[in-house]
């Protein structure tokens, strides 16, 4: 429970930071979407249930502060988590470069899924997708910058919340 709370608080922090950045970027009509950042650490490092619970809670948090069907982002985060969880044994998940690449791919998938869900009824689909591709580009750049920091933050938060289990998992993982 403490581990779930620790991960959830880091998600709240990321959600707030992204919101703050988007507030200041609104003048340029640039929007960052960092859904992949909420998913990857839990999918690569935690057991299935705690990781999935943390990811779904982060998804619901994102859903609550955005319009659209409540649960859409939670579902997308959950699916991304399941895919990554199945793949993680084949990946060098301790390499920072691999963590960044996986986060970028997860974000790409989630972004496209959310875009498809929201693109119904748009007056000019071509112009909207042009805008969305720009947003995706800036989001991926932002993810490259923050992923190592956010991974370290989540790792540290878990160590503080439950040092014994985290140390055991690390040994088991190695």
């Amino acid at each position, binding site marked *: 429970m403490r581990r779930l709370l620790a991960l959830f608080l880091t998600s*709240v922090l990321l959600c707030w930071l992204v919101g703050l950045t988007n507030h200041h970027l609104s003048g340029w*009509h640039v929007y960052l979407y960092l859904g992949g950042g909420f998913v990857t650490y839990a999918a690569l490092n935690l057991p299935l249930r705690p990781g999935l619970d943390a990811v779904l809670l982060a998804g619901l948090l994102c859903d609550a502060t955005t319009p659209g069907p409540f649960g859409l982002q939670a579902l997308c985060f959950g699916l991304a988590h399941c895919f990554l969880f199945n793949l993680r044994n084949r990946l060098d998940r301790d390499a920072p470069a691999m963590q960044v690449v996986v986060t970028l791919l997860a974000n790409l998938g989630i972004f496209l899924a959310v875009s498809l869900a929201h693109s119904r009824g748009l007056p000019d689909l071509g112009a909207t997708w042009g805008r969305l591709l720009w947003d995706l580009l800036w989001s991926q750049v932002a993810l490259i910058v923050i992923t190592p920091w956010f991974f370290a933050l989540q790792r540290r938060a878990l160590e503080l919340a439950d040092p014994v289990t985290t140390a055991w998992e690390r040994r088991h993982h190695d």
Partner: protein
Amino acid sequence: MSLRRFDQAKPFVTLGIIVAVWLVLPAVFKSFVRVSFFELEAPVEVATSYARDLQEYWALRMHSNEALVEAGRDLARLNAAYELRIQENTALRGEIERLDALMRLPTFIDYRSEPARVVRRDFSGWWQRLIIRKGQNFRITVGAPVVFTGGVVGRITEVRATTAVVELISSQNVRLAAVIEGDTRPISFQGGLNTSFAPPKGVVEFMPLDIFARPNARKRLVTSGLGGVFPPGLTLGYVTHSELGADGLYQTGVVELDPRLSSLTEVTVLVPLNPD
């Protein structure tokens, strides 16, 4: 072999069970969860907004006394001009009321102006909205129009304990009846064209064939008052381009909205006094 296959499918089965349980949960529960998550984050956003105001206050404190005296003098001049306008408006309002009574016209809804600071701006390709720092605590109502000095901002879509969400007119979900200034025929307006590094835009449909709009001869688009949400005559934007629609009976056009929409720090909510 089958055990290994199940191991591969286990995450998806677990997710499927969670999704199935979520789907059968009553809507009231989902709504409660949504509000709870929103309210969980709201104090953080509101505190950030107050911190931003404090930062602005300390920045203003750095101004010299001469600058403040000059600003005060300019404000006094503006106040004098506004005093005159208020007197003129009172006289005109009395005249309108007299004519309305004479012709037995239905009266428009009266509004209470509620200025509110902007907590957060969201300008994605999917939606454009603001979160403001007033909600149920100031009796803001869902559907109330929101305006600023440049015209219409949008309308309230969600009201929470201390915050409210404003959907901007640049958002694709906003559709309303508008008229070209000086004309009475209603036109359909929809937001939704928001490219990066460019001002927000919208589109108009069902524009009469005898109205022409070009970038050098743009037409001011105002609210029609139809539908009862927005008072008539508020600026929506300027129609800068029009062309014959697919049906050949009407024109479609592009509306350039106020670029300040994406950098608003304060707006005014027009709360209906007698919504019934």
